[in-house]
């Protein structure tokens, strides 16, 4: 068994239109994989297929070399989590209740002491302990996203004593930075980077900002018009010609030692 996310010949169509067309990729643990591409390239669709929200008409997704199409909902939820763009709650729930939802796949009736402790820990880690009894609906966009990240972390929580060779954990990020300001974007990317560095975690995300992708990704995947265009390290795939061809803007690269590559668009 390899801790690895593999996608083989994925095709997803709605009507006659292919949103993802014959995409094959593999994602290794311990690294941050980011998918970029222009609007409508199929990035979000691909993430949703990888997370098994959508089922492809053709192709297969496997976690740890096992086809996920047959996995039970609960078993999958114990080791696969998704951080989405903006989570709206229809009713007044406290921030803690939202974070506790991350433990839902792990307990039957009521949360046990272990679940309570995990929730306390992740809330402290994301600095949202002060919102414990606050209504989630009254939180700002950045505060909400911190609560959701805490929830996702609670869902994938594995304490350090557990066997790292047991099975992989799969974290997906569906444009989680969209409604955040620049400071929160960078803070979040640092946290994501930390999470992704763990040896049993496979992290695949979609981001809009090419600079964030260039700065934080270990591996970049470029999609355009439902097809895979390039896959590799940021310096390898982010070339001037390719960016100009796909995004239709002319980039200028500005390098610096400590912050890595920067792209300026003209």
């Amino acid at each position, binding site marked *: 068994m390899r801790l690895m996310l593999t996608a083989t010949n994925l095709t997803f169509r709605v009507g006659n239109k292919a949103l993802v067309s014959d995409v094959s990729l593999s994602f290794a643990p311990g690294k941050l994989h980011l998918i970029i591409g222009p609007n409508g390239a199929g990035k979000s669709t691909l993430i949703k297929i990888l*997370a098994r*929200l959508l089922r492809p008409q053709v192709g297969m997704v496997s976690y740890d070399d096992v086809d996920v199409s047959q996995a039970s*909902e*609960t078993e*999958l*939820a*114990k080791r*696969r*989590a*998704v951080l*989405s763009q903006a*989570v*709206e*709650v*229809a*009713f*007044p*729930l*406290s921030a*803690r*209740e*939202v974070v506790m*939802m*991350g433990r*839902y*796949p792990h307990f039957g*009736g009521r949360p046990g002491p272990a679940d309570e402790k995990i929730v306390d820990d992740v809330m402290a880690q994301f600095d949202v302990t002060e919102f*414990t*009894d606050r209504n989630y609906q009254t939180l700002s966009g950045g505060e909400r996203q911190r609560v959701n990240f805490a929830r996702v972390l609670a*869902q994938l929580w594995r304490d350090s004593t557990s066997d790292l060779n047991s099975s992989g954990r799969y974290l997906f990020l569906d444009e989680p930075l969209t409604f955040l300001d620049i400071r929160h974007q960078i803070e979040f990317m640092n946290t994501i980077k930390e999470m992704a560095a763990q040896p049993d975690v496979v992290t695949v995300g979609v981001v809009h900002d090419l600079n964030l992708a260039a700065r934080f990704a270990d591996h970049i995947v470029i999609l355009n018009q439902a097809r895979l265009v390039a896959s590799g390290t940021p310096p390898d795939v982010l070339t001037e010609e390719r960016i100009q061809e796909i995004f239709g803007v002319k980039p200028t690269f500005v390098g610096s030692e400590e912050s890595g590559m920067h792209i300026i668009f003209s």
Partner: protein
Amino acid sequence: MTKQHGNRRLLLVVLAFVTLLVLAASIRYGAIDFPLSEISRAFASILPGHSEPTLDQRIFLELRLPRAILCLLVGASLGVGGTLMQALFRNPIVEPGLVGTSSGAAFGSALFFVLGSVLHISTSVWSLPFAACFGGVVSTYLVFLLARSKEQGRASIVMLLLTGLAVNALFMSAIGFLSYIARDPQARSITFWSLGTLSGANWKAVTIVTTSTIIGTLIALYYSKQLNALMIGEEEATYLGVNVNRLKWIILTVNVVIVAVATAFTGVISFVGLVVPHILRMVGGADNRFLIVGSALTGATLLTLADLMARLVVRPAELPIGILTSAVGVPIFILLLRRRQYVF
């Protein structure tokens, strides 16, 4: 356990106590008031070795008592039904009466009464609730089918309410037609079905509604965690391991069955399912495990209070209970509508 959990548990205990108090008042007062001594003698008369019950005692045992208990159960059913509908559609202004369930169930029952007596269909105890469920299922699914928007494949709340209005009107006119062509004694008056009343209560009704209420509420409680997950969205719930489509079918079916069976014996009682979960959310938050138990108790209490008023205001005659629940429920509904813009 957090502070909130402790408060919720206390709240449920208080609610259960209030429910018992209201039940006691409900069996005590009405067209005839039964003093405690009379009540205890009536209970004693069913025990072996006691004298036959007097007329008053029989009125108590055969009319008042089943009515009070039926009222509790119907209130609980409507409260739980409202909670389930609101959780399912992630919207605090949905209730069984608004999406056609109640009028469809009333139509099913009316059809059963009129056609059943004309065609001499063999009638077991369960035929009436079955007919009501059939009507409720048809009307509810009709509303959701017609309200489904072409683009998203999802029912917008405005479409849902408008379609509910239309389907309600359709089924109400069908009930009107049935009561028009029907002859006494088999046809109940149209007011019974359209305004709701508990005056038809008997022990058979109590048995049937007890079964549906208890089973329905237990199933709902079993799925309360999944319903909670639904609050953060269907996609997110899926990521948390919930099979959303399966959950929707189960909950919608439970809701239609408990509401339709209740409606079969009482006619359409609106707005209980709307108001009850809303009040509870204000005092105890939105956790569905709390809401389901709480709305059963609160629904039972409020409907019993309404029934008590219906019996006392114009006594010895009585008002249809639906008039009272609508009079209280409509202003709250309008207030909720105005407080937020429901664009989905």
